[in-house]
């Protein structure tokens, strides 16, 4: 056979075997074993901001709407009904009405009604008597003035002004519907949902157990009898446990490129995917503390960055350069590469550094008289390693930096006190949407705007893009804003990481999202072919 014919035959065979796998009849039963990287702080999704919670807890709940769990690139177009059967905007785009599914029951047997939806959003907006211990995403619903119920099966979100992104936020894994009749405190320790799996127990440092909800409203689902998350903190042990078959899947998006390579060498049958997670590593500069209150100095710092070097050294090439929004092709809203290159610090590193050195010289710094600073970051490898590269790169513009590792638990408290000069931080975007990214990270007064960057003119553009209903026009506005944010050195983005997930070939229907890491773990139609 000639090589071309052989390749064609191989492709045909591969295609056929894929068709077989896709067409195979799902099997009911079995427990899916996944290792978990840590004991989650609680299982109340609304109160937490880590996918250590979303991964095990998403299966317990339903949303009104949800991103299609099998389309990796989540967007408005991939939103599907869940507890809502349909939705409609009014003519002014300020009222969004959902028809709700009837016959749905909470895991404790109480019927689900529109009141539960209202209760959830009253909690999120701090309007109810019961309160969350912490409420990290209350800003998402800033433009929701009220949620009203129309009988048991209909609910309307009234907005202060049009916000098409509301639907995107409602589809996030971070927006489950909570029951009215269960206190918020209980949801942290024993969550009750309407989802495909019921919570059984969480043992600290040991395991999280979910069992099939036999009364799940999607008839015939879930296929699995349950999911067992074994908490294995040591990553080396966890990877060995996966290779040995003790678990069927690694903790989603937790593996580095090097680890994925290691797994594949030990278990060639493992299916592994490396994808962006929409978590960016960024530089935070205390813009109120001299000499960093000088925009020229901040610009020089941004121009000293060699982003490719970060990606090559830290991620073995598995990362992307971008602005505050995840870059394409996986990211829906990120600036195109041509536009990115026009921003100082994203083009020719050599030239940019020359300019940066000129700025520094003008400010009175030189090789003999460097600016001495501290770079603070969490004392974790994912933070420390890029901080070390950053320190090395800053040397090229006469900045002599010293690493200040901060105990992880003290990090945000320190940043909130503004007790730092320059810091290195990781920012995860809950959804791939400009409203979430802009308002949360760059809006004046936002709790997560760590550098306290505040540009009132840009804030108007935030609102303008947020209210824009034409996606194409909105995208142009979003690019313009993102470019301006980078030029203002609000929070220079060093890189967007790609990370890996592996699972055994008998785990079927697994899809890892490619533009967020918080929304793809409902696991209702995963099945085991064994």
């Amino acid at each position, binding site marked *: 056979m000639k090589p071309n014919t052989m390749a064609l035959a191989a492709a045909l065979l591969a295609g056929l075997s894929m068709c077989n796998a896709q067409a195979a009849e799902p099997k009911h039963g079995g427990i899916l*074993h996944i290792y978990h990287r840590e*004991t989650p*702080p609680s299982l109340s999704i609304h*109160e*937490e*901001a*880590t996918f250590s919670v979303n991964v095990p807890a998403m299966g317990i709940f339903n949303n009104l709407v949800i991103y299609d769990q099998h389309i990796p690139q989540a967007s408005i177009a991939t939103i599907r009904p869940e507890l809502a059967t349909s939705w409609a905007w009014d003519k002014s785009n300020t009222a969004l009405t959902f028809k709700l599914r009837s016959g749905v029951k909470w895991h404790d047997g109480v019927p689900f009604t529109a009141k539960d939806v209202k209760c959830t959003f009253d909690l999120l907006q701090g309007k109810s008597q019961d309160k969350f*211990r*912490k*409420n*990290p995403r209350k800003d998402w619903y800033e433009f929701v003035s009220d949620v009203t119920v129309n009988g048991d099966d209909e609910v309307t979100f009234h907005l202060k002004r049009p916000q098409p992104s509301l639907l995107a936020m409602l589809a996030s894994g971070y927006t489950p519907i909570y029951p009215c009749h269960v206190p918020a*405190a209980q949801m*942290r*320790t024993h969550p009750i949902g309407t989802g495909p799996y019921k919570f059984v127990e*969480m*043992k*600290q*440092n*040991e*395991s999280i157990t979910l069992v099939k909800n036999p009364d799940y409203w999607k008839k015939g689902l879930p296929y699995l009898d349950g999911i067992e998350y*074994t*908490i*294995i*903190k*040591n990553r*080396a*042990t966890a990877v*060995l*446990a996966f*290779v*040995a*078959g*003790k*678990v069927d899947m690694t903790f989603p998006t937790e593996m580095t490129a090097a680890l994925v390579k290691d797994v594949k060498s*030990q278990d060639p049958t493992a299916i592994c995917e490396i994808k962006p997670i929409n978590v960016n590593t960024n530089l935070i500069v205390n813009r109120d503390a001299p000499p960093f209150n000088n925009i020229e100095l901040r610009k020089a710092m941004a121009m000293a960055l060699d982003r490719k070097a970060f990606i090559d050294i830290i991620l073995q090439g598995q990362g992307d350069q971008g602005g505050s929004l995840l870059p394409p092709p996986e990211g829906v809203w990120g600036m195109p590469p041509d536009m990115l290159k026009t921003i100082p610090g994203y083009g020719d590193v050599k030239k940019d550094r020359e300019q940066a050195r000129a700025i520094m010289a003008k400010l009175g710094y030189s090789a003999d008289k460097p600016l001495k600073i501290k770079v603070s970051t969490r004392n974790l490898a994912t933070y420390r390693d890029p901080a070390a590269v950053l320190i090395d790169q800053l040397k090229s513009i006469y900045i002599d930096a010293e690493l200040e590792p901060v*105990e*992880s*638990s*003290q*990090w*945000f*408290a320190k940043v*909130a006190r503004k007790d730092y000069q320059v810091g290195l931080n990781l920012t995860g975007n809950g959804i791939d949407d400009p409203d979430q990214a802009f308002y949360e990270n760059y809006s004046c007064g936002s*709790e*997560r705007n760590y550098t306290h960057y505040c540009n009132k003119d840009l804030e108007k553009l935030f609102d303008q893009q947020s209210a824009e209903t034409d996606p194409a026009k909105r995208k142009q506005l979003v690019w313009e804003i993102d470019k301006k944010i980078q030029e203002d050195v609000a929070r220079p983005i060093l890189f967007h990481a790609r990370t890996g997930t592996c699972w055994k070939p008998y785990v079927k229907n697994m899809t890892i999202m490619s533009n967020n890491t918080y929304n793809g773990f409902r696991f209702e139609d995963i099945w085991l072919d064994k």
Partner: protein
Amino acid sequence: MGSYLIRRFFLMLLTLFGISVLIFTMLRIVPGNIADIVFDAAGMIDVADKVKLEKDLGLDQPIAVQYVQWINGLAHGDLGYSYVSEKPALQEILPRIPITAKLAGLALLFAIVFGVPLGVVSAVKQNSGIDYVLRVVSLSGLSMPAFWLGLLILMAFVRYFGTIPIYTDPPQGFWNTLWLFSIPAAAVGFRSSALVMRLTRSSMLEVLRQDYIRTARAKGASDPNINYHHALRNAILPVVTVIGIEAAFLMGGLIVTETVFNIPGVARFLVEAIRWRDYPIVQNLVMFIAVVAVVINFLVDLLYAVLDPRIKYS
């Protein structure tokens, strides 16, 4: 003896009181509390909510008041609630104690079973081939980090047997439990046995040079009788001390082994609790470990008198 026991008992109480003050104070001197960490996990700080949480947990009260509340609760069997799991602390701590006790017990058994006889052999056969081999083995045991040895063992199991001896579910039955704990126990016990072996050897070498040993030989006593009856009994006292110290250490010091073999025992739980500033768990767990250490030391003291009738407590 009676008055000694009473004195020792009160001394134990005094020691525990000192430890309780020390733990309590040190925990609060360390920067940050559970409220900081709870909000850190959410990536934001809402000052009003944080203050409310601190108030709800009683952290806004003076340290002395908090201490008295804790001791009062302890005296009434109320260990408080874990800040993290929001479950009773006792319910969180109790199931982990047998897990660590089994692991520590097996490791100690490994240390004694291998350490003492091999130490005797090494001393009796001083400067022979077997002595050199045993000294090299014991030195490796002391110098090899437990996590490294543990990982090597795990890798070897995966590579050669296609399985991994880690704790993912509670083992059912005696043999399963023994299998699951024996490998990490061997990894820890290797270091302890090396320590015991070296100490037994040096202690034995000293005793074997004593006049009464020469006298026993002159009287025609057999080698095993001399080595194990006359020499070991006198050489064992410092070894017993070290075994006691090891036993106390193993109850709280197995963090690395518990992490590598994924055993949900006391040590790993304690370290996690410290990370979360879960005061009720840390305070009570450290107190428990302190009680174990103090009681073991007391038992070791009593054992001296049993092993060496010349020692009298009054």
